[in-house]
């Protein structure tokens, strides 16, 4: 097991042992655990990490997610670093309207609106100099489904992202483009 995998395993184990007793669906709280901690599935395979914390702010229909991602994807003659704070609102479609079921927890079908602000810096390793920086603003609309087994959940999301790239040094004009997005998070209810 490499150091990255060990880090993920340690993080996940720490999350598991930190789950308070009330994480079990409670008879006194029909909305179940109101907090969640997640890791990005795809960041597991790359040089970086994506973590999220979710709060059930308006049960049974609305939760908010705050996240932080970082990655160091560049290699060969360059090194790169990207930091990305994010905010996401999730409407739990399975808990409202005609689809409303007995389970009122943060599970089932959801609609998400997300904002990411990413800051990227690239160094030219050969010349030991800053190659440049970029800022990305992304709004994403996604449809997802949360599968919940005991306290562990996995949440695939499929959506469309509108992304604007900016060059703080002004060498490049801004650009905006639309792209499809697939995300999967896994974590535990706290």
């Amino acid at each position, binding site marked *: 097991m490499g150091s990255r995998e060990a880090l993920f395993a340690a993080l996940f184990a720490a999350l598991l042992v930190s789950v308070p007793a009330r994480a079990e669906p409670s008879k006194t709280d029909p909305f179940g655990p109101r907090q969640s901690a997640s890791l990005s599935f795809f960041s597991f395979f790359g040089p970086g990490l994506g973590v999220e914390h979710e709060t059930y702010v308006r049960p049974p229909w609305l939760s908010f997610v705050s996240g932080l991602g970082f*990655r160091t*994807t560049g290699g*060969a003659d*360059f090194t790169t670093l990207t930091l990305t704070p994010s905010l996401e609102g999730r409407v739990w479609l399975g808990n409202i309207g005609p689809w409303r079921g007995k389970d009122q927890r943060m599970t089932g079908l959801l609609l998400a609106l997300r904002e990411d602000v*990413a800051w990227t810096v690239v160094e030219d390793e050969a010349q030991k100099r800053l*190659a440049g920086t970029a800022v990305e603003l992304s709004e*994403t609309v996604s449809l997802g489904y949360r599968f919940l087994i005991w306290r562990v959940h996995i949440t695939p999301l499929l959506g469309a992202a509108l992304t604007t790239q900016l060059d703080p040094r002004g060498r490049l004009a801004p650009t905006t483009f639309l792209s499809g997005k697939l995300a999967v998070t896994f974590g535990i209810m706290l």
Partner: protein
Amino acid sequence: MRALLLASLALGCSAPTTLANVSYDDRFGEATSLDLFLPVGDPGPRPLVVFLHGGLFQRGDKADDRAAAARLASSGFVAATVNYRLGAGAPFPAAVHDVACALAFLRRGSADYGIDPDRVAVVGYASGAYLAAMLGVAAGAPDLAPDCDAGVTGPPAAVVAGSGFYDLTTLAERKEVQAFVGGEMEALPERYAAASPLLRVGPGAPPFLLTHGEFDFVLPPEQSHRMEEALASWGNEVRLLSLFDPGHFLAAGADNGGLYGGGVRDRPESWIVLIDFLEQTLGLP
């Protein structure tokens, strides 16, 4: 908020003027046409960036690079997106001839389009990267001299090649490569070697910037690693940006939480190294 931010950053970045479907070789119709993106304002001369699309010589169109060309034109560069002949009816070296003709045509018309003919970069993706590399290492070579009216021209001042392939002898089992070269390698070994920019590398090549996703499932990243080694071994200036990404049609987002459509060329890292490389090799407009 976003509109305000964009408006403030876009000051001085006016939308370019577009000249569509300019023919650079009348013999082949729209297959040998290009679109020009001209910045507004100062008539130049300005550096030129020529975009060559991908599609493994079977598909693709100059429109594929429209957004990138428009972005560079809005940043002050003259930009061009180029069609070239595709399919089994135009085997090697037809496409190489075409892009060499397009380069010669643009240099010959530099006064009309506000281009500095000495400050020209060629940017290609996938098979466009192959063609850009060919122009870098073999433009002006006698066996690749085109017979179009624009004549023969020398290599560009800089080459940017993303997710490309450079040694066809190692990809000879692929049907698209066989269609491009005009047969199987057993029958045409010399033609495969002649069609491989990696095997043509020598001293005096223009600066190269290579980019590739390390998990590119369409074209293996080893092609870019080997091209970098070949260029460097002859003392040429070369940089490689290797991205930990699937790369060709999918790329990890900056949020590190999702996979996005598009490729590594859309990623902010790719744009940063592109504009930095253009600044170093051509100078900013």
